[in-house]
């Protein structure tokens, strides 16, 4: 089973993720901030990391930049999820292996994005 790590500080958003991914073939780990996200990533290799951008403390984009700086995590596939438009994230594209999911999204778009990401890893 594919393992997902979702870093999201908004409790309601966490509920949406849980609801949408319920019954799907994923092992989902939800953490509320970038620090814990980093801890999890260090413990285990995830198939996909979904990052919220604007969070208290370390923001999602900074966590992403941090990951790309370390050779061990260079290849971790990332999905950035945010209400900000795609432009904000565009500069991170160069760092590789990342896609953008604009909020709000529905179940189909989330699953579609995850599938696309997983397939591009093969």
């Amino acid at each position, binding site marked *: 089973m594919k393992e997902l790590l979702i870093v999201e500080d908004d409790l309601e958003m966490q509920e*949406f993720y849980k609801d949408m991914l319920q019954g799907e073939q994923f092992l989902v780990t939800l953490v509320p901030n970038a620090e814990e996200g980093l801890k999890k990533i260090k413990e285990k290799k995830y198939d996909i990391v979904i990052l919220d951008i*604007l969070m208290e403390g370390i923001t999602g984009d900074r966590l992403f930049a941090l990951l790309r700086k370390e050779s061990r995590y260079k290849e971790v596939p990332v999905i950035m999820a945010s209400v900000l438009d795609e432009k904000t994230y565009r500069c991170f594209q160069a760092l590789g292996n990342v896609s953008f999911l604009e*909020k709000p999204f529905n179940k189909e778009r989330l699953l579609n994005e995850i599938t696309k990401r997983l397939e591009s890893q093969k």
Partner: protein
Amino acid sequence: MFINKKEIILSINRIIFSSLDIRKVYQTMSNELLKVIDFDRLSVTLITENNNLYETFVLSKDYEYTNLKEGVLYPMEGSLMKRVVQFCEPVIVDDTSKGRFLTDTVLFKEGIHSRLGIPLEYKERVIGSVNFGSKRKDYYSKKHINFFLQIAPQLAMAIENTRLFNKIKEAEEKYRTVIETSPDIIFECMKDGKFSLMSPSVEKITGYSADQFYNNQGYGLSLCYKEDQERVQNEILKILNGQNSSLMDLEFRVVNKQGIVLWLSLEALPIKEGNRIIGIEGFCRNITERKKLDELKDNLIRDVTHELKTPVAKMEMAIDMFERSTVPGNEHVFGKSSQIHEILRNNVNRLKNIIKNILDISKLESGTELLKISDISLVELVDQVISELKDTAGRKKNVLIQQLPLNIPIIKADRDKIHHLITHLVDNAIKFTEHGKISILGRILPNEVELTVEDTGRGLDKKTRERVFEKFYKETPSTFGSGIGLAICKNIVQIHKGRIWVESEGKGRGAQFKFTLPISTNNN
């Protein structure tokens, strides 16, 4: 009385090379001249550009003093000088008591009874005259004239050189003051990376003294922030290679002596020697404060965007979740909930649009958003808008037609923004039209294209026509929309350097929203 000519020429050379201080030149000159000719009063007059008389120097033998009347202007009219200059020939006055010239009268009172004026010519232009005065009547003769005509050219040269030198010195002092007091860094740098000029302000900004720049080749670039170094170097090379004729507003970071990162903006031009580029000159401005403000502004817009959009996004997701969770079957509950659901969805959409519009205009107005210019086909864009809005128009029984000339040129513009602009104008036309026709027309003008969105709808009265592009303007408070859409349209047209306006015959007689976009003439 006269020593030989050779000696005099030597003396004159001494005058020329004595000094470049105008006082000293005159002093030397009068001393030398006194050896060869007797006078009680000597003056050198120089003509100003507007032909006033400019008496710079008067020497009186009796008092053994020199009196420099710098900057005192005398009128040319009625003077001996005028005659000397006019005819460019020496003039002798044998007896000043006769008052031939106005100046004779003045000098007669000072005890001067005869005069001699010799023109000073330099490069075939009379620049002034040397004038002698004697207490004796009938003192000066043809002999003096002949002698003086021989040395006059050298005298003229000495005086003109000194005058030019002083002008240059003055200009140089001004230039130096500008460089020394400028808050910007003014510099000249040769092709080999050596600085030939670096203003002192560099120390205030970077903490490193100008000397450090003079003594170290390529010092400027080494202070550059690592990530910006290559970019700056490339831009400078483009100037040095002649690929670029100027650098405007190149923003880059430097690390100052305290290790603090500063933002500078560079403007530069090539230094040329004939056709060869030998270096660059320009100035650097400290824009750190501005950059900080820009960053604050960007962050503020980002945070506000986040705060406004997040709850709406979650509401939308919640509605979606709610929709999926209702089980169709119980007709009553389903009907009721679908009605509630419809209201929720409509209002969330409305709120979403308002927020989007407000954010769009704040981004446009703050200049945070840069245009993404590309070649765009207006025909294709209009067709796209029509296909997107056909259903909306149809719901209000409106016909939507495109009548653009086929040869409308490709223009350079931001595709998304122009799409937004046309969409909004058409959408707006649909809003105010029922059972009518909305046509998109085009015209090619000399340097621009004009697009018209014409409807047969409600029309606008004069007051509304004048105010319709204002932010938050609405005809009546109950008119739907945020009242910001047309303000955005205006902004989009303006940042593309076009014009936008509305024409209408009045209430109930339809409206024509028109805008122009420039046709780019260059091929870049």
